[in-house]
């Protein structure tokens, strides 16, 4: 089946969607009074280094099950908004104290800690509001939209991404699997499931998308961790300590490169296995399918990617 996947041009599919998402996000956050909060929100949401993986996964899952991508765009944008909110807060000095994100200085180093907290606090609800006000009501029944909102709220909340961040900061040293599942798996899971919900997927299909999204989300990060270790990019001296700290908390740092490779292969297989039930949809499964290989192999990069 990997030859099937090789025939699909994921790069074009992804790039096209990415441009559309970027434009919609730009329109979703116009600058009004008081300007500084809008600028702070825009700074992180519209960061050029953003690949828009969650929206692409959401749209692809929606289209796989016969949904219209117009039904998925508002939720796809909302995923980026809540994701940005959570990253802004994770970078704060009282959290990971990270000076950069997506190749640019992190939000609080530019706008101050107070504005960074408020930008996050505004982006979470904006995501929910965007879904309610922008989803075409003729394409998605209200009950499905409520499930989408529920799914996103749960993913970012105290048993989801916030739980991952908490354990990352204060939890036991051997909790790397939990942290990866929560910090990275939740977003992937939520993105795929939301796409399915918007297309009216049945329970079995939602379960498959759940497994798929979670596996891809974690796979993506495990591979990131491996690439980080192998990267020979020279780092400024003051950044070295941070890099060391990060390494300790990375998958490779905790388990070594051998096990990381094994885990990555396992996750790739798990993600593809979850897609098996969708073969009846024919070629429509290709975006999600080749997405798995991309997460593992990183066979291309975007021209403007930092």
């Amino acid at each position: 089946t990997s030859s099937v996947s090789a025939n699909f041009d994921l790069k074009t599919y992804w790039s096209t969607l990415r441009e559309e998402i970027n434009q919609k996000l730009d329109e979703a956050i116009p600058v009004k009074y008081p300007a500084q909060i809008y600028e702070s929100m825009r700074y992180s949401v519209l960061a050029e280094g953003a690949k828009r993986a969650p929206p692409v996964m959401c749209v692809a899952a929606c289209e796989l099950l016969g949904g219209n991508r117009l039904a998925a765009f508002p939720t796809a944008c909302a995923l980026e908004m809540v994701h940005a909110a959570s990253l802004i807060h994770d970078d704060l000095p009282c959290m990971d104290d990270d000076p950069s994100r997506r190749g640019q200085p992190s939000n609080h180093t530019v706008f101050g800690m107070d504005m960074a907290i408020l930008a996050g606090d505004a982006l979470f609800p904006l995501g929910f509001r965007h879904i309610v006000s922008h989803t075409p009501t003729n394409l998605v029944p209200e009950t499905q939209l409520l499930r989408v909102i529920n799914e996103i709220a749960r993913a970012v909340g105290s048993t989801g991404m916030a739980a991952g961040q908490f354990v990352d900061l204060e939890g036991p040293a051997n909790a790397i699997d939990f942290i990866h599942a929560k910090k990275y798996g939740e977003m992937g899971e939520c993105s795929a499931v939301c796409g399915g919900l918007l297309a009216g997927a049945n329970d079995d299909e939602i379960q498959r998308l759940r497994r798929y999204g979670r596996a891809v989300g974690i796979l993506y990060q495990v591979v990131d961790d491996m690439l980080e270790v192998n990267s020979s990019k020279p780092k400024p001296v003051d950044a070295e300590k941070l890099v060391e700290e990060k390494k300790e908390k990375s998958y490779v740092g905790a388990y070594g490169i051998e096990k990381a490779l094994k885990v990555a292969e396992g996750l790739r297989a798990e993600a593809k296995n979850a897609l098996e039930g969708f073969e009846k949809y024919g070629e429509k499964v290709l975006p999600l399918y080749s997405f798995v290989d991309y997460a593992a192999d990183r066979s291309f990069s975007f021209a403007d990617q930092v």
Partner: protein
Amino acid sequence: QEQVILQKPTFDFKAYMLEKGTSVQKALDESIVVKHPPTIHEAMRYSLLAGGKRVRPILCIAACELVGGKEATAMPAACAVEMIHTMSLIHDDLPCMDNDDFRRGKPTNHKVYGEDVAVLAGDSLLAFAFEYVSSFTVGTSPARVLAAIGELAKSIGTEGLVAGQVVDIASTGGEDIGLDQLEFIHIHKTAALLEASVVLGAILGGGSDAQVEKLRKFARCIGLLFQVVDDILDVTKSSEELGKTAGKDLLVDKTTYPKLLGLEKSRQFAEELLAEAKQQLEEFESQEAVAPLVALAEYIAYRQN
């Protein structure tokens, strides 16, 4: 005829607040269960259950009952507005914001759990408010729940709480601000969530568009009224009477209504807002269920602390 008028029961506000406050407290207590990781859930519960008068949830329930809905239908939304209120207090109290050590007579969330947990507990309360309303609201249509969620979301971000806090931060530090800016701060920081509380109740209770808009206007008036009265109390009452530091506004050179308008004109403005609020309730006058909202408006206007 006379008999009927004589038998009309007088509304017992104290008993009403006690009864509704008790059921809200119970619902809040049951809403957040301690799951893994426990600390974050304990931090959420610490601030959410810390007390307070529960004005917002009670407004939500009262508006729902006024348009013919049941208390149970409004309860998840009532809890959600209190979660949002609590979340904004936790974040506003952080050292990089207002830097407060005490809230509702207890150490603030970050003093007990640390800043990192306080940020996460706030974020989690925000998210959970939406999770809770979307999964536990019963007795109304999905379309109304969705509309309520849209209203709630609007009241938190750049058209609500956050906008108010941003302008408030920008205007502290001696810079003189005018009446327009002062009103902007209060409408967003205080009135927006009070408005959402009432509007959510009215939508979920089955209110017509016209009823929802009347109640929205009512809530805006009492939201601003709340703040005008707060400013007046700060200069006219002692710390002992208030249960918090009096004269604090003057001390930090904060712009207030008494400072901009003088005490007399501020009192007059409060009276006007109360009258305007009550005017919005006129069409509901024949209904018994209007009494709680009238009494809540009067309570906000005439409270002594």
